[in-house]
Every structure is written in structure tokens, then in C-alpha cells.
């Protein structure tokens, strides 16, 4: 999928997210994107929602549950959350929700910054393969995919969604 399609997906997500936040009576949430794809999606969502707080960015490498198996990620970027997490309503954004392990790691990291009032999960895509009880509150697309197919968001400019054939062993998201 090319950039135009992805942007219209993000437009749709933004509208549904606004409704969801209105229903929950959350006027001004803060937003956090997960590196790398989640940050790219979050940057566009953040703009569309016109949020007052700057965007937070998480690299969950230090919170992964497979460190003992695969070791340190060779390319870690600093996590930056430029607002107080305590008592904030937070919109957490990632590109693809599959196993749920990345989200588990991200939630753990967020809680080391403080105790948020609530967390809403938004993903560009959700797909089969869940290994933890984690679901997206708003997802742009739920494509039917085979277990050996992996979706990958390339970016940041332009954004592009591609499907790659992958062995079953190490699902990333």
C-alpha cells in the first residue's frame, strides 16, 4: 500500500479516535509512538488531532522479553517522553499489532515514567497471532494474513506498507 492509502487510513483512525476520546470524556490526551513505525504513524495522528503536548517516543529495546534469547538490539534510540505521565490520559500508537509483546513492553516502560490515568491503544494494522490479552481500541485495517506473511511499514517519507514472507520463528510485533 502506498502513502496515499496509508494517509487515508490514518484519517479514518483520527476520526474514530476523536469519537472514542469524546465518549470517554478525554479532552486533551498525550500521545506516545513506538519506534520506528509507530512514531511515524503517531506524528501524522498527532497533527490531525492538534494535541497540545509534544509527541513522546518510545524505544522498547530495554523492555523486550526476548533479551536472553537474542541479546541487545544493536540500534537503540533514546526514549523521550516530554510531558508528565502521572495522571495523564495517553494514546499509545504502533504500526502493527500482532503478538502483543511490544505493547506489553511499552506499557511497562510507560509505567516507569509515572502512573497514567488511562492508556488507549491505536494501531495502523492489527492481525492474527496474539500471544497476550492485548487488543487495539482503534485499528486502521485488519488484513487477512497467513502466519508466514509479515507486514512491514517503511518510512518515514514516504510511508509504504509491504508484505514480506517470513519464517515462523520470531514474530516481531
Amino acid at each position, binding site marked *: 500500500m502506498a502513502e496515499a492509502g496509508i494517509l487515508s487510513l490514518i484519517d479514518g483512525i483520527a476520526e474514530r479516535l476523536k469519537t472514542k476520546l469524546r465518549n470517554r470524556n478525554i479532552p486533551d490526551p498525550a500521545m506516545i509512538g513506538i519506534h520506528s513505525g509507530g512514531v511515524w504513524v503517531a506524528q501524522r495522528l498527532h497533527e490531525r488531532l492538534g494535541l497540545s503536548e509534544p509527541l513522546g517516543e518510545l524505544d522498547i529495546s530495554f*523492555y523486550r522479553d526476548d533479551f536472553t*534469547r*537474542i*541479546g*541487545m538490539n544493536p540500534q537503540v534510540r*533514546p526514549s523521550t517522553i516530554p510531558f508528565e505521565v502521572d495522571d495523564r490520559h495517553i494514546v499509545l500508537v504502533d504500526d502493527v499489532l500482532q503478538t502483543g509483546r511490544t505493547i506489553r513492553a511499552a506499557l511497562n516502560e510507560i509505567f516507569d*515514567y509515572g502512573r497514567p490515568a488511562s492508556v488507549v491503544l491505536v494501531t495502523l494494522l492489527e492481525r492474527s497471532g496474539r500471544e497476550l490479552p492485548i487488543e487495539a481500541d482503534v485499528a486502521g485495517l485488519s488484513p487477512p494474513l497467513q502466519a508466514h506473511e509479515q507486514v512491514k511499514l517503511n518510512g518515514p517519507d514516504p510511508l509504504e506498507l509491504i508484505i514480506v514472507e517470513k519464517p515462523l520463528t520470531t514474530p516481531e510485533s
Partner: protein
Amino acid sequence: MPFASLQLDDQGNLRHFLTIEGLGRDLLTRILDTAESFAGVTDRSVKKVPLLRGRVIANLFFETSTRTRTTFELAAKRLSADVLNLNISTSATAKGETLLDTLRNLEAMHVDMFVVRHADSGAAHFIAAHADPGVSVVNAGDGGHAHPTQAMLDVFTIRRAKGELTPLKVAIVGDILHSRVARSQIAALNTLGVSEVRVVAPRTLLPKDARSLGVHVFSDLEAGIRDVDVVIMLRLQRERMRGALLPSEHEYFQLYGLTDERLEAAKPDAIVMHPGPINRGVEMDSLVADGPRSVILQQVSHGIAIRMAVMSMAMQASGGENP
């Protein structure tokens, strides 16, 4: 076995961290980048990450140290590892136990990593060569040989203050002869492509092979620091001095002590560093040590982030072998 091959696994990842020599620019840069990510952990309400949860790290200090040992301990704790502090000089070896026996006993307690400081050059290498395959060793200073985490935290401090490393001129001043810190700094700065590394010292405190280290040698302080971006002062290692290498500390300060006046020879935005502990009035004037160009206390804070990076990167290889 040479240090380099012992330090890296088949994929070129860090397995032990014993010396800067033999490590490439990419790996050193990766250590600096990883430390950059760890530096932010200090600003959060929970100042630790769960990366090394359940791992045991033993600080084996055969030689006394406050700064290095505490920052290693703090780094290990911020990675959620369990830490054993063994002050060996007052422990088993004093009762005649050999180094290998001490090592075997600690391995039997399922220690995953040894952080070693020892007065003999090659001690960390010896332990790495004899340790279990799943155990990693980090050198926290061995004799006159190497102190690689100190060199990396110094480079990290320079990079944070100056940005790009390659155009810089760096002068290392003082007791080069006895300094494992200087040796590691020179190796790190050269590997990372710093344009000019100088050493400034009286002839009696220079190693005979100084030029072969890839440095410009100066014996006059003001000439040596002229137009440099970074001045690194070394501690005068009184405990390592044998014989009359110096007339007196007073005279040393007259010739090599850094004062605000002398510092004018360096670039106006030059930073001043010191690995600590400072002998005030011997290597440098208090006005310089506490002055606006001093980054000495930042070096201490950066030591924690660098040690977190090195420990987590070296730990991976052992984890990879025992899934």
C-alpha cells in the same frame, strides 16, 4: 589468545570488554549510542530498566576504588541485575586462595558477569580466558594496561559537549607513563577518528614508545594545549611511582598544573576533564576544576550510562549461548 578475538564472538558482538585495542569504530560508536539511550533513564521516576533482571554481576575489586566501583554498581542496579561487591584485597586472597579458586567459587554461585579491577596488567584477560563460556568479564582497570570503560565515558562526555568527534584536537596531560586511562583514551580517540591526539608530560612520565601510540608528544604545557578543544588532565599516581621521577609536587604544579591563565592557550570553548580523584593544586588549580569549562562531574554521571551500555552489550553473548 589475543585480546581482540577473546572480546568478540563469531558475529563480532561484544563478549567481554577488556581493552579498546582491537575493537572497531562501529562497535565503539554503538557503545556510545546505546549509552545515549541509557542516559535518559536517570530522568524518569523509576530509574531502572528490567534488561538484566535475574542476572548476577560480581564486582571483583582487587584494588581500591570508589568512583569506578560505585558507578559500576549503580549501572548494574539500573539494569535490574543483582550485584555482589567483593573487596578481595581484604578477603580470600589475603588468606592465600588463588585467583582461579576465587573465580571457580563465584562461578559456582552462578555469577553471570565479573567486573574486575586488579593491580596487575592482564588480570581481566586472564579471568576472561579461564571463565566459564557463559560468563562475561568487564575490565575496570588492570595495572598499567587498560581502563576501557573510563576511556569510553570520556569520549562520551566529549561527544556530548562537542558533537562531531573527527575535527577535534585533544590533549592528554600528566602522568602518561603510569596511566592505563591514557592508553585506553588514546586508543579510543584514534579509533574514533579524532584528528589530533596529543600527550603533554615531562620526559620522565612518558613511556619510551610514546610516539608509536599515534600521538603528538609535547613537554611544554602551553604549547601542548594550544588551540585544543579538549584538555584531559591525568592524576599524578603517587602510589605507582618508583624512584625520583619528579622533583616535587610543587614543582610539578609550577610546570604542568592547569590554571585559568594557562588554559587561555586552548580554544575559548575548550572543555577540561579529569578521571578523578583530583589532586587539587597538583594537576590543576581549584578554580579550573570547579570552573565553567570543567565537565569533571558530568564524566562521573556519564560513567553510569557507559557502564550500563557495556554490561548489557557484553551480557547478550552469554545469554545467546544459554537460551
